């Protein structure tokens, strides 16, 4: 047991727990934020993605110890932003959502990409999504949604 302090969705938090616990479990169980999902538990599918200091991270591979002093944003907090609204509308418009299990992770991946590169090429989008698995859509409609978000959200990133 140890004490870890970090910022979760802009709130300073303290967790007293086993340092080896997965950030995924800490966020889902201790803070009851269920927007991130466990799809594979080994960093392949990206359904558990969160932003840590604005970088996309698979929370299933991230142990609690490593989050000390960092800033974590989950889909719940990101969903309050203007950029989310743009992404949401683009995903809806382009049909990027089917079962929805990968979608919060895809949204986090989109934010992470557009934050670094507001005008990505199609190939840059595909590379950015390559750590997020989707079994329903075949990806093109997600790629199109990100292109649409980049266009509609011009100036936001």
């Amino acid at each position, binding site marked *: 047991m140890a004490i870890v302090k970090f910022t979760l969705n802009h709130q300073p938090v303290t967790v007293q727990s086993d340092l080896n616990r997965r950030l995924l479990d800490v966020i889902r169980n201790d803070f009851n934020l269920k*927007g*991130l*999902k466990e799809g594979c538990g080994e960093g392949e599918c990206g359904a558990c993605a969160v932003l840590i200091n604005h970088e996309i991270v698979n929370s299933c591979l991230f142990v609690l110890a490593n989050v000390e002093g960092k800033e974590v944003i989950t889909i719940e907090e990101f*969903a309050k932003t203007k950029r989310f609204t743009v992404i949401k509308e683009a995903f809806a418009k382009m049909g990027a959502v089917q*079962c*929805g*299990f990968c*979608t919060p992770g895809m949204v986090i991946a989109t934010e992470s990409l557009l934050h670094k590169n507001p005008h990505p090429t199609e190939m840059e989008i595909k590379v950015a*999504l390559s750590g997020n698995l989707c079994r329903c859509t*075949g990806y093109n409609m997600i790629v199109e949604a990100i292109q649409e978000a980049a266009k509609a959200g011009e100036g936001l990133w």
Partner: protein
Amino acid sequence: MQKDISISVNKIDNYEKISGCAKYVNDVQIEGALYAKTFRSPIISGEIVSITVPKLPDGYFAVDYRDVPGKNGVKIIKDDMPIFAEKILRYFGEPILLIVGPQKSVVQSLINKIILETKLIEPIYDESNIAINYHYEKGNPQNAFSSANRIFEYTYQTGYQEQAYIEPQGMIGYSEGDKITLIGSIQCPYYVKNAVLLALGCSSEQVRIIQPAVGGAFGGKEEFPSLMGCQLAVAINKIHKPIRLIYEREEDIEVTTKRHPAIIRMKAAVDSDNSLVAISSDIRLDGGAYLGLSNVVLSRAMIATTGAYTIPNVDCSGIVYLTNTVPNGAFRGFGAPQIFYAVEMFLNHIAKDLGIDPLDFKMKHLAKQGDLTSTSGTFRDPILMNDLIKRALEISDYRRKSQKYKLENQLRGMGISLFFHGCGFTGSGEATIIKAQVKLHKDEQDNVDILIAAVDMGQGVRTTMSKIVAHTLGIPMDKVRFPYPDTDFVPDSGPTVASRTTMIVGGLVAKAAQKMHDRWQNGVADTVIEQYVQPDYIVWDEATFHGDAYPAYSWGVNIVDVSVDKVTNQVTLEEAWSVYDLGKAIDDLVIKGQAEGGITQGFAYGYLENMEVKNGKVRQKNMTDYIIPTALDTTKITTELIDNPHAGGPYGAKGAGELTLIGGAPAVAMAIENAIFRRVHNIPVTPESIMELIEYGNR
């Protein structure tokens, strides 16, 4: 004038899913829920001699077959699979008991301490244990073969495929008095309910099944959740506490059902004008350890044995053999992907042997309206395959590119597949087994609830059904509600399978909405129940495979352009084109999603997804080993539809969900064959097999 129904709307669950608010089974919070984990067979085939469970701390329980109050068999078709193994262990990972308790880590350590003594039995992997043996004929195949000008015979093999829904299997449940409620990631609420009723031997009002958001299924959550539901219900019945049974990915890949590997031998009689006069096929499916749905998968494959073509004489045999391997089961396409792969390759190979153009050869034999089907039923609706093909050739520039790649000889190739999918249950299943019922309820505020058991697992059924109702009633979408199915409130509209939901259930929903419309009174509550009635022209004899196997068929053409890397033999999809006749789209964007997602799975089945079972164990353990397509594996896909409304479907709609997967594998395998100038017989066509083909394969 109302808008065309196909024009897309914002899907009703878009916001909850994009924002992460949608509740999947593992997001459901139940105070004090215990954690359950399955202790599984560590051997492939044998007998249990003794089980020693360590002393359980307070609050921890072991649940096994002795706790099953009803039948220790999962109701699927023959109830042959036990809920918990009693004595015989038939596959690696077969469930023996559950350990249940408050702490996951303690449960896991208790599982690790269980001592199982077994006596090994020699495992069976070959065809010696035949469980199902079907045969049917059309015309007089014996005569046709004996008088044939030429006879061709080839064998095709297909591999396993894992559904790989991103949300693993899971269920959570609780009891109130003598009533048990299960919330699960499932396709078929009433399949689970009926299975639990048999397991508990209780009455219908004592079991309630609720479906939350489902994170993908693809057939993988058709019959498998009945097993988990029975186990969980038995545990809750014993412990009387809420319990959570959620699989982790490795467990899910190791023990859940997969697409049946198949060996398909095809033989054809061709007469002097290069016409196919007879086809004889022998389809052999590895069912795994228990029968499950395998006989129905086999019959769907057998019925499609002539592909999209009319062949006057047919002799078709099929078997399901059981082996000491993980049970195989439902997967989008349900036997059709295997047989269409074989038929498409076979006709391609016959044409090459005859020295004629494969596409011309296929088009010469295309089924037409009024023709007899393989089972001597009738294709009653217009068949627009010529239009579909014409359009697909135009948008892909297929002929020119095929010729160009052939001359260039640069490991680039085009492939094309022609296929159909029978919509709904095979034969009289809808009338004799399913007997679907739907219900619409209007309250005094004129809000209309759709009460059906159809599950939205991503295919958009909550949106399309709502659209059908809103459109028929002429009311806004926001006056229509589609609550998640709950067997306490919705009638049994049947399972969410077999490309039946839009056509059959949606058809009933449209009928009910029309009735409600015709007697609509503002501010007055109303309930309409509609029951499925089979069209009287459908006559099917299950014993002889004779008659109309399906009320309607959806049709498709897939074309793909691939390149093969000279050094690594990696296949790259360069571009793909599809044209479908699925009657009428209820929502264009939903159909685009089905088309792109389906073909992506179909292509991957043909060249990318490789699962092997060696010595009774699945070798691919997780998503790192079992490769499904990533964003980088996809290509530009153009999809077009040609409307061909079917009178039995709502607004003319037929099935769409499975159709879009079926043509992918034959198209991509043929494209690879054309790129490397070697005959392809087996899928997946992996880089290793391409290397072997280039070295040793036949031209």
